[in-house]
Structure formats: structure tokens, C-alpha cells
């Protein structure tokens, strides 16, 4: 066992690295910046968690999703790694103050990208020796990426301010064009690239066409009747998630089914998520809010009742299946007009041109009314914007020199030009996204070319040999599918609360000795 394996075993209890991890870690320890594209579920986070133990100083991880950060911190603490912290707005005031004043004592610090624009935070960060700067979900930096975040574009600046530490940019999905974007936007020089194929040899693909909703439900019922395996079903709206969960429960009385979406109370969200992890649920109907940070190894089937808005998201969601390497499948259900909702989602991501026009007129008429720029809620209400749209605008206003440090610049007068530029930008971006959506819809429409080949062709040149079937065009069918089925006790006789309680509290016959 060499040095790195020894450390791996000591800190994480694994004896060997998974594909790609060791090479990335070796480069980082040598001080080279790295772009790492590793498929979901391949242990990306270990690429910085292990260096956090080994490097002098702290590792700073920028992550776009607060829930993801919190989950990771929880998991690390559960394994005994205590010097970790996620700095975010959910921390209570006192916890936050404590964490900030003791920032240098943490080996691993998770922050949101917004946090890196906070001057107070940067002042605290000044006292910390950042030995590695990690950009998680690095595709968010690309305007072409499926989860573009304007705040990511400012990371370059933060990296400079911190004194240009080694950078590790990680993503599960990045087309070659997005990879170039990551490299340029982060200002990386002499970067080492570790690009790993995204296809997974244990997941088979299947697309089925229907004329309406009820047929989809009936099909899912049939499949699940045959295979009672851990299953995730993705929907694009909260309402349908609830409705379908109810209908499936009625039709599948032996399955334990629940739904999960971002509109639920936090307490219930944790319970449902943990039940699924704990195999108390067989099927979870969810929106894309579920799954971030989910580390369940034996998900056998990922159903897309609705498709997401682009190939990258789709690959990421499918990638939650079969992390244990066993036979798994992706099932996509398509019906006419299914494209309407994603189309609307895309249109809503950016403000429409009329709104942009109105806002610029409003701001130019009140050039010195800096209050309106600062009062986010007022602007959201007044112009009926969502938060993402407003952030996008603020970023553009800053980029074009109209505002600086939340103040409208007095000398700015290119209002018309700004309008034109934004108009062009919005048109280009929307067209691009519609193109991405069409790409995914086309993929699902295709009936003649191998689905695997078509899906991954823009990411990689070769495909690995599928282990348990390829796709419905080539050879896959549910008739011959043989996923591992875990026997479970379906008919546990109902016990009264007294017996259940005794068991839960480990009393009487249930005592642990």
C-alpha cells in the first residue's frame, strides 16, 4: 500500500481509489490546478476531502446548493471528520460568528458563491491559508451550462483575492465547450484535465411513447408490479408529483410510495428522504429538488415521467441509478405536448424583453434612485420578476458598467445600447436553451440509433460495453431485465403501539446485549 492508499484507508476506511480519484489527488498535491469531469456517483467529493486531511491550511469549497453542502457536512461529521463547516445564511447568528472567528481552525470550509462577494466574509477569509480552492458543479460557470449561475462568473476575482491557490474544478457533466468555458472563466493556467467517460455500463435505457398521462401511469404500474425495486420517478411539477404518487399508491398496494418536492416542510422532507435511504420506501415521486446529495447505492430504476430541460440534467438524474454497479435502468415516458412545460420553464429563467425595457426606463428616469437597486423585494414585486431573473439583470448591469457596488453610475448614459445588448443576449441564450431542449426531445424521439451512442456522443468518443443490456433500440426490454431483487418482509403483522414502542426503545426481548 503506498502513501495515498494508506491515508485513504486511515481517513475513509476504503482500501482502493475509484476511477480517476488518485490521479486528480496526486496532481493537486503537486500544486497543479485540475479540471475533473467525473460521472455522478464516482466519488467526486473525495478528490478534495482527502486533500483536506493532507494539505497544510484549509480547503475552500464553493458549492451552489445549500442543501448539498449541509448534507455533505452532516455525512462527514457522521464519519468523524469534525473540522468541517458550511457557511451559509441558514446558520444562526451565534453559530455563524463562532465559525467566522475560528475560520482557520476548519480543514474544510463550504461556502455559497454569493458568500464570496461578501466583504465581511472575505475579511475573515484573509486570515485563513487557503491551500485548495474547489469549484463544485463547475459547469454552473458556463453560460451554456444547464445550471448557469451568474455568481460563478465572479469566482475568478475571488481566486485572485485569496492569492491564487491551487484550483480544482469539478463537474459531472460538461461538454467540451463547457470545459473550455470553465478553464477561461476561472483563469486557469497550465491546468491538468481529467475527463472521464460519463456512460455507465450497468444502466440500460428505455424510452416509451404514449398519447396521454393515464397511459403513462398504467405503464409505470405494470413495470413496478413486475419489479419492486428502489425507484425514483421524476416529474416537472409539484402538483403532478403529489397526484401521481397518490394514483400509484392506489394501484400498487404492496409498494411503499411517497412524494418529495421543494414545497414541503423541512421536517417532512428529512423524514421522507431518510425513509427512502433506509429502504422504508420503495418508490419516490419527486421533482429535481430531490436527489442532490442523495447517496443511495441500490436505486435500480430512474423513471422520467417528464423530461428535464437538457441532456446534461438528464444524464445527471439517470446517474443516481445503480451506484453499486448492479443492473439498473433508465425509463423515459414521452407524450405529445410534454415539451410545453420545459419550454415555459426556459422562458421563465430569463426576464422577457419587455420587462428589461421597462426596468431600464425606470432606472434611467430615476438615475439617482439607488434605493431601487438595493430593494430587491420591491423590484421583484414591481416588475413581477423571480430571484434568478433579478440576479441575472444585476449581473448584466454591473458588467456593462451601469452599476457599481449597488449604485447606479452617474456618468452612465448608454441606456439604449444596454437595452440592445441585453436583448441580443436574452435571445441568444433562449435560442440556445431551446436548442438544448430540442436535442433531448430528439434523443427521445429517435427510434433507430442506439440511445446510448446518441446520448453520449457529444461528451466522449468511445463507449464502454454495457453489462446488462444497452437500450431498447439495441437489445433491452423489461421482459428480459433481471435486476437484483432484495427480498423483504412485505406482510409484517400489525403490532400495537406498545410492542412497536418496546422494540424502538430496545426494551424487553429487543434489548441489545
Amino acid at each position, binding site marked *: 500500500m503506498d502513501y495515498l492508499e494508506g491515508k485513504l484507508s486511515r481517513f475513509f476506511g476504503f482500501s482502493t481509489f475509484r476511477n480517476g480519484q488518485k490521479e486528480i489527488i496526486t496532481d493537486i498535491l503537486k500544486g497543479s490546478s485540475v479540471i475533473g469531469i467525473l460521472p455522478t456517483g464516482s466519488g467526486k467529493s473525495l478528490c478534495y476531502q482527502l486533500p483536506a486531511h493532507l494539505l497544510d491550511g484549509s480547503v475552500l469549497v464553493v458549492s451552489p446548493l445549500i442543501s448539498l453542502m*449541509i448534507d455533505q457536512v*452532516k*455525512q462527514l461529521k*457522521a*464519519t468523524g471528520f469534525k473540522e468541517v463547516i458550511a457557511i451559509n445564511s441558514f*446558520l*444562526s447568528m451565534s*453559530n455563524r460568528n463562532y465559525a467566522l472567528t475560528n475560520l482557520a481552525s476548519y480543514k474544510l470550509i463550504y461556502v455559497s458563491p454569493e458568500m464570496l462577494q461578501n466583504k465581511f466574509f472575505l475579511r475573515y477569509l484573509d486570515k485563513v491559508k487557503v491551500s485548495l480552492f474547489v469549484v463544485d458543479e463547475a459547469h454552473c460557470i458556463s453560460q451554456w451550462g444547464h445550471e448557469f449561475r451568474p455568481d460563478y462568473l465572479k469566482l475568478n476575482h475571488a481566486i485572485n483575492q485569496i492569492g491564487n491557490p491551487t484550483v480544482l474544478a469539478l463537474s459531472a457533466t460538461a461538454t467540451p465547450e463547457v470545459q473550455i468555458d470553465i478553464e477561461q472563466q476561472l483563469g486557469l493556467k497550465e491546468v491538468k484535465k481529467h475527463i472521464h467517460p460519463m456512460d455507465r455500463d450497468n444502466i440500460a435505457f428505455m424510452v416509451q411513447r404514449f398519447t396521454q398521462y393515464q397511459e403513462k401511469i398504467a405503464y409505470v404500474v405494470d413495470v413496478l408490479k413486475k419489479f419492486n425495486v428502489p425507484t425514483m420517478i421524476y416529474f416537472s411539477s409539484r402538483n403532478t408529483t403529489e397526484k401521481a404518487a397518490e394514483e400509484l399508491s392506489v394501484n400498487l398496494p404492496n409498494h411503499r410510495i*411517497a412524494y418529495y418536492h421543494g414545497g*414541503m*416542510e*423541512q*421536517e*417532512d422532507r*428529512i*423524514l*421522507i428522504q*431518510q*425513509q427512502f*435511504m*433506509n429502504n*422504508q420506501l420503495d418508490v419516490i415521486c419527486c421533482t429535481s429538488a430531490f436527489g442532490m446529495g442523495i447517496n443511495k447505492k441500490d436505486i435500480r430504476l430512474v423513471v422520467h415521467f417528464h423530461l428535464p430541460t437538457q441532456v446534461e440534467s438528464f444524464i445527471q438524474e439517470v446517474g443516481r441509478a445503480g451506484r453499486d454497479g448492479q443492473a439498473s435502468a433508465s425509463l423515459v415516458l414521452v407524450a405529445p405536448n410534454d415539451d410545453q412545460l420545459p419550454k415555459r420553464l426556459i422562458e421563465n429563467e430569463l426576464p422577457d424583453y419587455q420587462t428589461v425595457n421597462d426596468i431600464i426606463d425606470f432606472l434611467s428616469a430615476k438615475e439617482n434612485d439607488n434605493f431601487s437597486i438595493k430593494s430587491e423585494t420591491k423590484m421583484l414585486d414591481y416588475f413581477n420578476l423571480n430571484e434568478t431573473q433579478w440576479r441575472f439583470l444585476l449581473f448584466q448591469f454591473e458588467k456593462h458598467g451601469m452599476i457599481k457596488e449597488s449604485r447606479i453610475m452617474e456618468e452612465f448614459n448608454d441606456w439604449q445600447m444596454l437595452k440592445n445588448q441585453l436583448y441580443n443576449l436574452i435571445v441568444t441564450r433562449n435560442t440556445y436553451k431551446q436548442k438544448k431542449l430540442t436535442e433531448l426531445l430528439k434523443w427521445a424521439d429517435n427510434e433507430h440509433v442506439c440511445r446510448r451512442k446518441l446520448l453520449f456522443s457529444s461528451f466522449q468518443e468511445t463507449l464502454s460495453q454495457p453489462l446488462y443490456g444497452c437500450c431498447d433500440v439495441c437489445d433491452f426490454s423489461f421482459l428480459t431485465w433481471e435486476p437484483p431483487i432484495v427480498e423483504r418482509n412485505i406482510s409484517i403483522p400489525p403490532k*400495537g*403501539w*406498545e410492542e*412497536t*414502542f*418496546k*422494540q*424502538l*426503545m*430496545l*426494551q424487553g426481548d429487543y434489548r*441489545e446485549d
Partner: protein
Amino acid sequence: MFTLLILDCIDKFKCERSLSAIYHLLTGKRSSQTLQDAYSYGISNYFGIYKTLDRIKFNRYIDQMREKGLFEGDDEEASLTRKGIELLHIEKNKGQLKDFNGLKYNRMTYYCNQRLTLFIQTITNIETENYSFIAINDNKDIQTWVKNLFIKNKNDLQKWLEGLYTELYMFLNGLDELDATIFVDRLTGSKNIGLSKEQIAKKYNLTHHDVEIKIELISHKLITFIRTNKQEAPLLSIFIEDLIEQLFITDSAAKTYQLLRRGYDNEQISSIRHLKMNTIHDHIVEIAYVDYNFDITEIVAKEEVVEILRSIRKLKTRKLKVLKENLNNKYSFFQIRLVLAVDQTKTWKGGLD
């Protein structure tokens, strides 16, 4: 249950308050108007018992009740119909809601519940040697509290499991079968994650609103149980000890209580806090209402308590002046008020002779 709750509120408001006032009462809006409503119409026990109630869902529910003919009138002036009155007063519905203690408990239930749930999850997992489990609650305050309790007692887990089991069993045994079952279903142990509210609703065929209210009511019953059985439930008491202070309506009374517990007497507290003796007496009366284990015999001797109690029983009145005169002005208002307090809370254990 939710229907009954709203009917009871409409009934007690006697056409004098709007339906919005019911919403503010249930969600525990801390405005003087809402607090005054709670006191003057005798429904302070419902204060803040349904904090997550959504305004739109509330309005929708109210409309449905009106359509069913349970009450009539507009939002400003609603009164029960005959059908509504009957529903409110039929035998099986009586007393269902009487154990709420909203004004006092509404800020305690969440903490009490979540501490207990997380602690049980923790000790059952550690006991079964599962050291990496994901906490069912991610509130930092609660996690810190549970962690501290755990660290103090980590060598005594067997004793804690057994003790909590016994104490909770005693509590659950006094509940309806359904309430006890729901309480147990919500708990998370080493093998099973507790059920969400939605799942409880489905399993027992209850509405979402009823589940919310039921779970809250069970928590109120639990806190009352702990407070009245401090000797029998020493472990459970630990979960609410520091929360008891929050029971006080005024923060000022809470401060006096703190000092009292640290062993200062009335005069000392009065001088430390620069407050008049009368104010301290007000606080002590408040404390007697809240702390069921507060011993008043240091202020009123046992025989004196008995004498005052007899007088209360005989005259069937709670009017201070009448009582004072009947007792030949032997006792101060302060002493009589204290006895009234223990009489009201039924915590006098000294008998009547």
C-alpha cells in the same frame, strides 16, 4: 377536529370578532389585540396551536364549513347555525380540545418534541452501535442541546432507554389508542425512520389539518403530564426544565423565577431588580400558576392554606375581597391569590384538613 376547533372559536367570539381573529389566534400572532382576544373570550388555550396554518387554506376551509351550513354570516360577523351548535355539543366531541394550553405551551412544544425525538434517535442508534446516522432534525439549537445531554450521559444509555421507556409508557397509556399510536409512529429509532405528517394522515384517514392539531394536542398533553408528574418522570422533566421559564407571560416574571431558583428571597429580589414588593408578589402568583411544583407553604402555612381553601369551597367564589372579609382580614390578598392559584391548578396535595 379542526372543524370543532373553529366552531368553538366562533361560538366563544359571540359575533364580536372577525374570522381573521381566529386565524391570528391559531397561528399565535403576538399582537396585543390577539392576546386580548385570547384572554377576554376565554380561548387563550388555543393561542398559537397551529402556527403553520396557511392563510389561503384556512380561508378555503372556512368557506367549506359555511357551505356545509355549520355557521352563517360574513367574515366580520359569523355565528353558529343550529347544525354547528349541535356538532359542537354532541357527546363524543365534548372535551376533545380541553387539554390545549396554547398561551403557555405554544413556544415549548416544538423544542420539547424535537429534543425528545432526536435524543431517542441518538441513543437507540448508539446503543445498536450505529455511529453514523443522519440527524432527523437539522436545527442547530436542538442538535446542540441533544448533544450536550448525550455527552453527559453516554455511559448510562441503558438506564436512559429504560427510564424514558417507562416514563413515556406511562404517558402513552393514559392517551387514546390512536393518539398513542401516532406518537410512536412519529418516533425514529435505529431501524425505523418516523412517519411524516402526510403519511400519518394517510395511514389513519385523517385530514392534514386534523393531524397537525392532533400532534400539537399530544405535545400539550405530554408537557402537562411531565409537569404534574415530576417525581415519576424525572428524565422527561429534563427535556422541558429550561423551557418552563418561557411559560411566563411576562419576561419580568421569568427573571424573578430565575432568582428565586438561585435561592434569593423576596426582599433580595426586590432590591436586586429595583421592583416594588407588590410587583414581586404578582410574579410569585404567576409562578404558582406555572410551576406545579412550587411550594407555597413557605409563604402560607399548611393550616392556613386549608382554612382559605375551605372558605373558597364554602362561598363558591374567587372574589378576593369577599374571601378576605370572610376570613376576618387575617390574610393578605397575596396569600389568598396564592391559594387560589394552587386550587386552580389542582396541585395542592395537602388535603382539606
